[in-house]
């Protein structure tokens, strides 16, 4: 059985005439330790799908199972526990807590885990050890995203959910961040589910799902995976 399994996921927003069906019966399977990319243009429903996997959005229909546990059946408390112990989130807009330093932002993640990674070592890995006492508004976008990844990864989650992690970054920084995600995946073995509209990023994935208008148009296992450092767009 797949580590992460989605069956017939449907999701609509609005009501009556304004009702828009964003996801129209999605089925997908992701294996443990894979880097999976959900690729699609704006409005294709990829972020909604990611949020449903992350338990911050609920599907109207269908089931989501992670490691054999059905998320849709969980109450709010259980969902919180699920996110707490199994997930790490990385956003395009970083969502760092503005009045906490780099280290403290990572500690926010560590606080939730019974066995967190070593924060200083992680900061070294992320290349932000020198910035540890700075506030987010003193950092560049790349540094903020590294911090955000640090916060997500410090609790060593089963799944790392990344929503357009390079959406706000320049080319070079984007590549650095992607490499970092790749390194983290390798080092800690987390399953990475990454949403992006950048077609080039699919090349670093183990598995790719292409979405358009709420439907998976194409899904495949990437046999010709290349390192993030070699990506080009």
């Amino acid at each position, binding site marked *: 059985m797949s580590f992460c399994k989605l069956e017939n996921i449907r999701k609509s927003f609005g009501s009556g005439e304004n009702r828009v069906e964003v996801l129209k019966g999605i089925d997908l399977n992701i294996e443990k330790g894979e880097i999976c990319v959900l690729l699609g243009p704006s409005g294709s429903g990829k972020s909604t799908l990611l949020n449903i996997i992350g338990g911050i959005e609920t599907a109207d229909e269908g089931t989501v199972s992670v490691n054999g546990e059905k998320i849709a059946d969980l109450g709010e408390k259980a969902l919180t526990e699920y996110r707490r112990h199994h997930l790490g989130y990385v956003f395009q807009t970083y969502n760092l807590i*503005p*009045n*906490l330093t780099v280290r403290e932002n990572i500690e926010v993640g560590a606080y939730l885990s019974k066995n967190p990674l070593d924060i200083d070592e992680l900061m070294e890995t992320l290349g932000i050890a020198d910035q540890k006492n700075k506030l987010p*508004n003193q950092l560049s976008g790349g540094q903020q995203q590294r911090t955000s990844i640090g916060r997500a990864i410090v609790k060593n989650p089963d799944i790392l959910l990344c929503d357009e992690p390079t959406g706000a970054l320049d080319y070079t920084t984007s590549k650095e961040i992607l490499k970092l995600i790749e390194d983290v995946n390798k080092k800690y073995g987390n399953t990475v589910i990454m949403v992006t509209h950048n077609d080039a990023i699919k090349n670093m994935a183990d598995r790719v799902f292409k979405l358009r208008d709420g439907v998976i148009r194409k899904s495949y296992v990437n046999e010709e995976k290349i390192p993030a450092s070699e990506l080009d767009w």
Partner: protein
Amino acid sequence: MKNPLNKRFARELKSDAGKYIAVFLFLVLFIGVISGFLVADNSVSAAYHEGFEKYNIEDGHITFASEPPEEILAQIEKAGELEFYNLFYKNEALVDFGADTVKTVRIYSERDTVNTICLMEGKMPASENEIAIDRLFAETNKVNIGDTLHFSKCEYKVSGYVALPDYSCLYENNSDMMFSAVNFCVAVVTPEGFENLGDAHMFYNYAWKYLKPYADEAEQNDRSEALIKSLENIIKKYDEKLIQAQVDAVWSDAVALSGGLEKMFKDAADEIEKKVTKAGEDAVKEALATFSQDETSEILLKESGMSREQVYSAMMEKADLTSAQKLKLAADSKKLSDEELLEEALEMTGLTQDDLAAMLLEITGITEERAAEILFDEYCKKNNTTAQALVAAKLGTTEQALKDMQSAFEDAENLTGDLDISSKEAPKIDFDKLEKDSDIESGLDFSFDDIYSIIDKVDAANVYDMADIRATLGKLEKLMDIHPDDSELIDIKDYIPRYQNMAIMFTGNDMSSDHATVVLMLYIMLIILAFVFAITISNTISKEAGSIGTLRASGYGRGELIRHYLVLPVAVTALGAVAGNILGYTVFESVFVKIYYTSYSLVNYKTLMNGEAFLLTTVSSIALMLIVNIFVLVRKMKVRPLDFLRGEVSSHKRKKAVKLSPKLPFLQRFGLRIFFQNAGSYVVLFFGILFGGMLAVFGMLFGPMFEDYSALAKDTMICDYQYIVKNDSVETADKEAEKFCLTALDTDVKGYVKDSVSIYGISDNSSYIKADIPAGKVFVSEGIMKKFRFEPGDKLTLKEPYSTKTYTFTIAGDYPYLASLAVFMPREDYLEMFDKSDEYFTGYFSNSELNDINEDDIYTTLRLQDATKIVDQLSSLIGFMDIFMYFGVVMFLLLMFLLTKQIIEKNSQSIAMTKILGFKNDEIAKLYLLATSAAVVISLLLSMPLIHLLLQWAFRYYLYVKMSGYIPYIISNTCYVKLFVMGIASYAVVAALMLLKIRKVPMGEALKNQNM
């Protein structure tokens, strides 16, 4: 085209309804209360001020202890250019409330010219057994129309309620610390009803009106000062004349006595001389009789130096014998003894023994007196005594006493003539001098002590009964110790020009100070609210920085945006103010009028529109809100559009993070970060809590303070009963009663209102005042020490009321006595300072009722419960103080709600993120409420000592200065405990609301674009 941004207003109101509703409701309530107060204050104040003319309120009054002569009144009227109106009253104790409750009713007869009466309800008394009483007293003590009030001599049926315009504030005495509608009442009866009360408690009170009205307060003051000087002179002249007449009468009695005394002394001297002479003669006679003829002859022969034969021969010649007789004698001389021979010779010659003795003296040339002296001396020698001792023995006294008496009489010869003072004039009285050293010099040329010394020596010699002389001298001495009877002097009990009359003026002054306090409260509250708005606006600007940046980049001007962000706070303030005003006029006005009418005995009023209330509550509120918010917005909007787009809205760009030790637990560091992030909000919160706390403590403190004061005042009372008697001949058989002296002086400390101070003269080893007061110094009550900030060793100068005479006391320490301001001094010092005779006293201390003193002899009785009379009144007024406490709580709730809410909103994205990360709601609440909880607790804890200090400062520099009397500043700890509990409870409510709010923060919030 209308500004499209305007469409946001309705949505903003909807989305932030909680904040706007809270602020709106608070403003409505707060401005409603303020506006209601201002309208009530204005309307009642207008009625009060119009009353001066409408009821022809006096320009002042003088109260005398006895009815002064018409001529004196006429002189004062002339000097002061005024007219007196008789407003006699009687202070009667009401017996309806039990023996332990002292309620005094000041009963007047009709008043139809000055201080006319405002009938509030019922009707004026029409018969002699009807009475109209003060409305406020009636309401406070639940006396209904138709009830019967009982006094010791009369009873009256209450016919109606009145307000006397000269007692809008029920001050029994002008120097009382507090007015009292609980224990003091004014009332009116018919002239017949007034008569029935008797004269025991009558006060001869005259209200005056100036013939020519004064222009302003300064002139009122000048005229009053001039009047008191004239009054002093007129009364001084009258009193001087009265005293001189008394001195003259005394002198005339003394003259009569002194003439008699001189004669008595002469008679005594003559009599004593006679007695001594006779005793001397008797002594000599007795002594001579002890000698035989031979012994006498022997002694005299010895004195004359002649021989026996010479004398015999001379005697024979003198005897003229015949020759035969001579021969016979010669023959017999050989056989007869001398005695037999003499006998034979005497027979022959026919001579007697006395003839022989005379013959002997003639022959020897010694006089009879000399012979007696010689023989007496011989007698004394023989018996080893003195002539003086023999005389003294004859007189039945001792030789020394006789000597002393004789020596005293020699001295007395120098006094001759001095005792008779008929040629002297009576001493002339100089009132000024009399006031200074208070002794009238008699001008006598002798000393009573010298005379008494002579009398004592005569008495010691027991030769003459000097009792009459002593008694007469005693009378003279008593007469010469001239202490005029001052009971007939004009005794002013009260002199109060209108502007100093608390019963008339306090209401008006209190209304103005209430007005000032309320306006100050309004401004403080508005400034705090304006800052709350400023913080929330600032928060909104940070949140909307991207949009603002875009708008600015698109060409929106800074002013346009400032105006935009100003609209809602100003609109809410304006709406709140208008709604508050409506509420003020319709609801709160009557609430405050009721408060005024439960504090003061006011005449009828009409509600008046108050432009000032509108201006202060509405225009000022909006203006203040505009000013504070424009200030904040202008500063915020100074940021460049690009910086807005980058989310860099702080003026302190790229502020460094405060270093926190990683050793601190994560939660604490998180809390500290929140604390630093919202420091501005917490500062406002602190000031809000301080102000709200001050209101709350102010609302709470008086209840426990009065209870504490009441207990302390009772504990420190000198005794259960202090009787002030009408003269020092009033005696009691009660052995536990202790006499004391008492007078009242006024303080004259710059900057303080005048206080009346009781000066006690305390007996040595007093059973009631347990203090060893050093001679020449005084102990003062704690009130004097604390109120005027004295230290031991300082000098306290007090002034005699209605006079310029001052007295200075050296403070040795304080005495725990709280019922009034008092000075305690040794009785001897008191008698000397106030020139009183040794027997003088003013009253009795006693722990039991003195039933053997006639009620008419008692001027007043101070009972244990009188100590707390003021507390009874104050306690009756503090009901409305709760309003301050409620406002404090509302303030807590509002500020905590608004500021905590904005902190949560400001961090909503982070909160959403923490939710996504897997934090539980209670953990998030801990993270985000910990800092605010700490801020609330710290603010509450910090505000307590500050409130204590601020209120202490207000007591010391405001209340003690503006208010007569003294109440110790004791804030019960329960007030602070309550404050803390109220603060925490308010915060608990807010925290619960915020917990709900945190729960409602959608995780999708984190997915929104973020401006940082």
